[in-house]
């Protein structure tokens, strides 16, 4: 028989247990919605300078007015990507959602988690027309606009080290053959031809984006992004993969590139320590090379140019790939009052003239029309003007693949890209895997 007898200790235990339970209950009942007076809206953005200060200033300036309050919270990039998805899924999204447009935005739009702002933009035509035309594509899902552009344009650029190129007797390549020539000369001179942080995978993806564009033109990926997975089997996708194989065979990428990750910026360090000739990277690396690379940028040793054309290919030298800009969406879960405050902020605060000026001062190109004078007056005028004119002249601006695609397909893509660059997948296998939706 079991012996049940209540002792003093037993009572103590029971009380302790009960109080622990009540405490636990308090813990879960935590976040009460503390809405401020006079209307307020929450806004999540990404941490990291220089943008953090710029965006914080824009919010402070708006809050000083009488149109309501914006509560700004910053998150670290990778952490944000997961947190925002969880928050939206749980109905806890902020009023203003920071994002990248493309496939991620499409999943939010299809689940009716973000507001359709098409009609609002028609009313506010002046506001809409301030932006560079090409940025609206990635904000549009099925002919409707769900996000507003913000920040700077970040095309992918082929950077080169002028000192290294001069030493090996080569010039910045504008055709595929010239590129192969640079690779050969660099290898025989004992410097790395191309700096690439291959472990990060999206870094290798930038090569594929340009290769596919130059071989098959922008239409091939446009079909893929529109959901036509058969387009992965296009001949130009296979030709793209074969170009990668050709590069691997020529030892085009720095030794050990599979071990290098972009987050430590060692790929950029190879450039400013004169250990590599070329690097294909986002426009944002200009700023970080300027900050970390001693006088590398200031002394004019960093060169930049378009990605080479490929003979017989359809893509033009002026086609761009990369991130048009960042995007802000309105959460459908927000109250009408919150949405009003958020709209006022988006219209007057988020991309104000002050923000544009601050972005230029930080070495990037805001996606706003009529910046020529401001760019010409800036410290990095040569680079910024080149980016700005490239942006306006580009016949096509393909969005970065991992952002244009839906998240599941983007993850599959990155896994397959890494294997293509490791040489464990052939060009055909890569195309077949992607068409079949096969990931790791």
């Amino acid at each position, binding site marked *: 028989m079991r012996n049940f007898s209540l002792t003093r200790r037993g009572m103590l235990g*029971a009380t302790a247990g009960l109080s622990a339970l009540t405490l636990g209950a308090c813990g879960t009942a935590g976040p009460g919605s503390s809405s401020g007076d006079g209307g307020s809206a929450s806004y999540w953005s990404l941490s990291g300078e220089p943008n953090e200060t710029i965006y914080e200033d824009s919010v402070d300036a708006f809050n000083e007015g009488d149109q309501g309050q914006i509560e700004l919270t910053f998150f670290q990039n990778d952490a944000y990507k997961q947190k925002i998805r969880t928050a939206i899924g749980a109905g806890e999204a902020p009023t203003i959602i920071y994002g990248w447009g493309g496939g991620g935005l499409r999943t939010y739009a299809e689940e009716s*988690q973000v507001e359709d702002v098409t009609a609002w933009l028609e009313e506010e035509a002046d506001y809409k027309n301030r932006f560079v035309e090409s940025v609206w594509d990635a904000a549009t899902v099925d002919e409707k606009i769900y996000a507003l552009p913000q920040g700077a344009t970040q095309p992918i650029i082929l950077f080169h080290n002028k000192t290294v190129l001069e030493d090996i007797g080569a010039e910045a390549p504008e055709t595929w053959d010239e590129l192969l020539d640079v690779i050969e000369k660099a290898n025989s001179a004992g410097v790395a031809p191309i700096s690439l942080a*291959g472990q990060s995978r999206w870094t290798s993806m930038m090569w594929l984006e340009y290769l596919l564009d130059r071989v098959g033109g922008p239409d091939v990926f446009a079909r893929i992004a529109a959901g036509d997975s058969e387009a992965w089997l296009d001949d130009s996708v296979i030709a793209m993969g074969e170009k990668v194989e050709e590069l691997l065979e020529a030892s085009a990428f720095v*030794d050990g590139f599979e071990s290098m990750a972009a987050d430590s910026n060692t790929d950029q360090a190879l450039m400013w320590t004169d250990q590599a000739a070329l690097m294909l990277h986002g426009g944002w690396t200009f700023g970080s090379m300027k900050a970390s690379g001693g006088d590398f940028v200031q002394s004019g040793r960093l060169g930049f140019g378009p990605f080479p054309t490929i003979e017989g290919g359809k893509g033009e030298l002026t086609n761009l790939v990369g991130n048009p800009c960042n995007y802000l969406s309105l959460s459908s879960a927000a109250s009408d009052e919150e949405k009003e405050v958020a709209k006022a902020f988006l219209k007057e605060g988020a991309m104000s003239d002050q923000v544009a000026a601050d972005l230029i001062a930080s070495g990037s190109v805001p996606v706003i029309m009529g910046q020529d004078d401001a760019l010409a007056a800036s410290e990095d005028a040569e680079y910024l003007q080149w980016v700005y004119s490239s942006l306006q002249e580009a016949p096509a601006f393909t969005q970065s693949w991992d952002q244009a695609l839906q998240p599941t397909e983007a993850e599959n893509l990155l896994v397959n890209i890494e294997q293509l660059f490791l040489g464990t997948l052939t060009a055909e296998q890569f195309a077949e895997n992607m068409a079949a939706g096969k990931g790791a």
Partner: protein
Amino acid sequence: MTALSPATPQLAVTGAEAEAAPVQRAPSAADSRRPRGERVHISHVLFALPALAFFAIFALLPLLGVVVLSFTSWNGIGAIQFTGLTSWAETLTRSTTWQGLGLVLIMIVATWLLQTPLSILLGTFLAGQQRYRNVLAVLYFLPLLLSSAAIAITFKSLLDPNFGLATGLDMPLLKQNWLGDPVLVWGVLLFIIAWQFIPFHTLIYQGAVSQIPQSMYEAAQIDGAGRVRQFFSITLPQLKYTLITSSTLMVVGALTYFDIIFVLTQGGPGVATRILPLDMYLTGFRGNEMGVASALAVMLVVIGLGLALGVQRLGGKDASASQMEGA
């Protein structure tokens, strides 16, 4: 109460007895060998309640949620759709699952083979009374204080082919494609994991070795046993149950290695280090396939429980019995 380990009620009973009236002694000889905690006092139930409640809320409930999710398709934000066995079918037919499982098993065996002998030797060594051993012990335990993410980031920088140790120490031999070579990367991972966890297991063994009665060694010395003989005939057998505890922690721990690998390789190069727990995370939170990820999670739970039980079984039925009798 049988689900609880026998040690807990035993302790509780002695405490309660000191307070309450002495309870009847079990008369039979067979019973006297067992701990007296077989009878359940209401206080035991009450004492266990908070723990059980927390366990139910924070372990069982989420586990149940994962089991339910494994029968759905969910992208993390949309509606959760019950799709029966679809997610399970996909989970069990994708090659990554089986590759990830294989890699996890390799991880378990390799970490155990690498860490156990080293931990036992170090633990035995550190159990000695000499002062310099205490100093060394403090040094050895340092990695235990560091977070996995910090360790991974540090090693990643040290192993960088262009700006890492090889350049810093000017030793070309160290300039390898450490994280980019599918074979080399395993050596790196096993080394770092051993570096991080051997201190912990050493600590366990050190404690166990210090508990072995000195009289046993004295007796062995009289019988003419040398150091090596003493180690194999006294120390090792006395460590049997510590070995089981440590092995359980290692085996189950290896099933959940995630942070270090995630930071160091993200499962790469290719899929060379995409072990099952990492695959689960990437599938769920990068690929947004919560159904498949949940099925993988259920697999991991089942495998983990099975392995933990299996290791316990190795120690015989009465794993908590004392070995000290007669000492």
